[in-house]
């Protein structure tokens, strides 16, 4: 999926997308022992897993947090600010789960309210103004489902964030570092490059929610997890993401330093690459990246195509 960008850079060299050379898994064949989706869900949710705040400290050279959405509040479930990464200034926006029960309560278990997404949008615009790349870390069970979040427009905030990321005139790299729960995750997940940590998950609905609806029993969550194919390797195969940042055998929490170093390496490589892409190409490639995800068939179009006289077919679709 990164080919478009590399083509914009003047032809695709071997590893032009900078993934493999920066240690990122770009092909599922490279995964030694592939976890089951349910194992991945457990690892992704492990409270000991390094969360955004810790990773920000380990990955970036300096970080200053910026607070507030300039309209209602400051959401502790979203950490946003400016940082250095190898001599480059970047805007960082991340969902923060707690690493303890107390922190989880303070951070709404990483479930942002609308003001969290609006803070993110503010920071995205700041990045655009100053030509800084954006890096997001995704780690949320989903957007907060409470009535106050509904009152303040949770859906509008998510839609707007998706919109702003999609049209943002700055390079964007998104990384699912743990749990990528539905629209609440996607709201920080639109980018030129989308990576996942090896054991992260990213799904349209939680396995429990899916099981409750389709099997009418939350205890079928493991089956649902398998059916949803939301583990990193699945999504790499499906073309939804671009690569996986490796984790040690036991999961990210067993060697935090190594994981952070790998993440840093991957981010630096992608920023290096994206920095030289002209903005117009970048935006076109970002549009196409999402435009092309999905699978459908159009039997009548194929039939219609065949039924056309040869000269029309030669002229191509544009001629119709």
């Amino acid at each position, binding site marked *: 999926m990164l080919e478009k960008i590399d083509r914009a850079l003047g032809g695709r060299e071997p590893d032009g997308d900078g993934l493999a050379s920066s240690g990122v898994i770009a092909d599922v064949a490279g995964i030694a022992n592939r976890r089951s989706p349910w194992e991945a869900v457990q690892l992704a949710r492990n409270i000991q897993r390094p969360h955004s705040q810790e990773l920000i400290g380990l990955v970036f050279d300096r970080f200053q947090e910026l607070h507030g959405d300039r309209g209602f509040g400051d959401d502790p479930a979203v950490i946003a600010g400016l940082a250095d990464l190898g001599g480059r200034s970047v805007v960082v926006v991340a969902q923060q789960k707690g690493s303890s029960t107390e922190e989880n309560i303070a951070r709404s278990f990483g479930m942002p309210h609308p003001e969290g997404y609006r803070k993110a949008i503010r920071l995205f615009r700041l990045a655009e103004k100053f030509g800084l790349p954006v890096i997001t870390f995704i780690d949320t069970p989903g957007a907060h489902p409470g*009535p106050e979040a509904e009152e303040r427009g949770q*859906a509008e905030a*998510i839609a707007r964030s998706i919109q702003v990321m999609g049209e943002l005139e700055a390079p964007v790299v998104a990384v699912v570092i743990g749990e990528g729960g539905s629209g609440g995750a996607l709201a920080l997940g639109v980018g030129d490059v989308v990576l996942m940590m090896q054991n992260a998950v990213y799904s*349209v609905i939680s396995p429990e929610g899916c099981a409750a609806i389709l099997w009418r029993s939350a205890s079928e969550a493991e089956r649902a997890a398998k*059916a949803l194919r939301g583990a990193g390797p699945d999504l790499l195969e499906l073309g939804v993401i671009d690569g996986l940042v490796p984790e040690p055998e036991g999961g990210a929490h067993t060697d935090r330093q190594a994981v952070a170093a790998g993440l840093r390496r991957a981010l630096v490589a992608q920023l290096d690459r994206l920095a030289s892409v002209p903005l117009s190409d970048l935006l076109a490639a970002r549009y196409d990246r999402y435009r092309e995800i*999905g699978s459908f*068939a159009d039997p009548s179009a194929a039939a219609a195509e065949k039924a056309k006289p040869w000269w029309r077919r030669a002229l191509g679709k544009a001629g119709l």
Partner: protein
Amino acid sequence: MRLRVPFVKRSESAQHLWTQCPHCGEMLFNKQLARNLNVCTKCEHHFRVGARERIEQLADRASFAEIDPTLVSMDPLGFVDQKPYPARIAESQAKTAERDAVVCGDATIGGHPVTLAAMEFSFMGGSMGTVVGEKLARAAEHARDGRRGLVIVSASGGARMQEGTIALMQLVKTVAAVTRHGKAGLPFVSVLTDPTTGGVLASYASLGDVILAEPGALIGFSGARVTSSTIGAELPEGFQRAEFLLRHGFVDQVVPRAQLRDRIAFFLGAFSRPAREMRWGV
């Protein structure tokens, strides 16, 4: 590619000559109900209407020309719950006579050229998978190419679980497409009908230049059950209804169905009469 396809009228089954209004309990004669745009003649409860009926209500007579009618879903995940996904699709196709949950086409509304899309809630809960995402994106791109307004009537439970994360990505696709359409200076009227929830509300449907809703429509991000269990308490009366969203600033107008066509036409008209000298004066 445009195919002019005749409306497929849903058969009014003989055994249902009467419908009881779920709101006021009134027994309504089906023909009269249909003549009243499927709005209860006693309490004005707005019954759900299907995609084709909606298009008939909104488009100028005989102006609708469907586009992309034949797109059908694949099964990217090989998804099986209690039934395989392809079986569910086949069932919905048989039930609705639609190939998926949205119908798109060119039309005029009050004389204004638009691309008009209406969702079919009876098709897997109007859920947005690849086909819905693709057709809406094409509709927006097509409207942009033809410098037409865009009108999307939503009725959806959200993203289609059976397509997993791929369904989630349709949020981005549709948002990006309506955004490009908007950047060309063209108007997008988003109409929210009962119900518009989840990923559809959290994407293109919340991004209309004007957002209209039908009276009493359920509109929200999280399912009320989820929300209710989160706070462990009863939700306020009218929670996530159209009027609630109006009060909270997310809907421009709650418009009774009988006025919807004229209202959309007004806004399309207002947005297409710029002070022209200004626009080219830069």
